[in-house]
């Protein structure tokens, strides 16, 4: 078992798989939110603010504060605490307001 912040007591986790965070593979389990997988791996900064370029991370954990937002599969401003991890998901640390991919 890898050294991470997961608690294994009293629950059994589902299937393990990988997600990609800024190009680096990170393990996640079925049923975990993206935020939980990041916290377990010790990844705390999810975005840098638009004005002050300051790091932000998961704060309220219930989808209200938007501190934990990242670019998920190309979509910026996505709350990692409200998004279930899926195999092959690609995450990027969001920088400011970030550019949207223009869909024609």
């Amino acid at each position: 078992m890898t050294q991470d912040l997961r608690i294994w007591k009293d629950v059994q986790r589902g299937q393990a798989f990988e997600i990609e965070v800024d190009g680096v593979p990170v393990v996640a389990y079925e049923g975990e939110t993206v935020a939980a997988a990041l916290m377990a791996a010790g990844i705390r900064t999810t975005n840098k603010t638009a004005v002050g370029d300051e790091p932000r991370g998961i704060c309220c954990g219930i989808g209200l504060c938007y501190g934990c937002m990242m670019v998920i599969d190309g979509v910026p401003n996505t709350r990692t605490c409200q998004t279930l991890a899926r195999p092959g998901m690609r995450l990027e640390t969001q920088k400011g307001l970030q550019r949207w991919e223009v869909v024609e």
Partner: protein
Amino acid sequence: MKNPELIIIGAGPGGIAAAVEAARAGVDVKILDENPKPGGRIYGQLNDGFKLLNPGFLGPDYEKGKVLLTEFDTIREKIDYLHDALVFATFENRTMAFHQAGKGQRLPFNKLILATGAYDRPVPFPGWTLPGVLTAGGAQTLVKMQRVLPGKNILFAGTGPLQLVVANQVLDGGGKVEAILEAGEINNWLKLLKGFSRNWGLLTDGLQYMRAIRKADVPLLRRHIILEARGDRQVEEAVIAEVDKDWRAIEKTRRILKVDTICLGYGLVPSVELTRLVGCQHRYAPDLGGWIPARNEDMETSVPGVFAVGDGAGVAGSAMATFEGRIAGISTAQSLGYISSEEARKRKKPYLNDMKKMGRLRDALDRISYPRPGLFELAHDDTIICRCEELTLGDIKSAIGKGTIEMNALKRMTRMGMGRCQGRMCAPAVQEIIARQTQTPAAEIEYLNQRPPTKLVPIDVLESLPGEFEIRHGW
């Protein structure tokens, strides 16, 4: 499709209890909840993928939740329950809009029960935006629902029993708690817990938590507060101090703790976005978390047929939410003609009695743990207050200095509260800042106007909404 007679928003304890009572009487009920499973924050269930081997870590709430959720299950075929359904707007002509699975839908409502819950009170202080600073509720969600520790060396800072509960769950999960800071007087509320334990089992739980914390040798520092979180890219240390009875720091007691995580539990703020949007009258009740909708004894708000129950109508915990939900459910059944007023009175009686008993305890607890003035004086001029728009206390003070002393004007001047969180993380604090700067009682400062959407929704969801909408006058 025929329109439901009663719509309930929120499937936490209040919403479920209301649905159960109304459906039992024969009312055609639809309940919408933004989460994947019913139960709300307190009785929430693990996501699919997790298998629960032993519910011990979920605490006594789990058993209480199971009873209510089982009741919900037994009458489920009579209730139209929509999960992952986020209600983000209400409009004129008693219509609402919700988002589910990438699509926007509109729904007319007749009777409406709002059971929207509450969230952790945001308390700005230097460094509170650093990664590693979480709310106690956020930390609890991680530990309880996701089984992940929020960090390696954890400091809890706040007031009241919730942070003890979360600290216990962290310890139970093998985590390390550096210290727990209680801004108030623990001894006071412990005495209270003892006095009421004969009536209320949930309060004896508090004593158990205390014992476990003592056993784990975690320092529980009463009359202590966090002044600052420091670190380069994330939390590395916390500056703490002892406080006086107004929660103002005693400077010579200031010291530093090496921690990588800070969990803040300063009580809850009611989520009144929808009661505001519907146009209910609100009043300021700091002992119940802040602004709350005014209600009569049937839980009906100033808008006829619109009810509000649970923490979203004044923070009082899950037991109270359940009683209120039942009363609102019975009341709607009566007003729709399913039961007589005599029958309604009979069904409501036990819950009204329970509420009366609970009320006495609430009063006592509130006097002990509601925020004191020092809590609102922690921010410095360069401390961020509005996280979304990155406005500092200095920015807000300077706008106030130029004469912008009304919250909605301040919003237009500075963009305060205009960001993604829609003011949830700054407005409670800004209200106190204006109060201090203008020497006005906080209760006299008008709160932010609510506009749809109450939460962000993708633009194509708005586009997919059928029909036209008229927004409420006064926006």
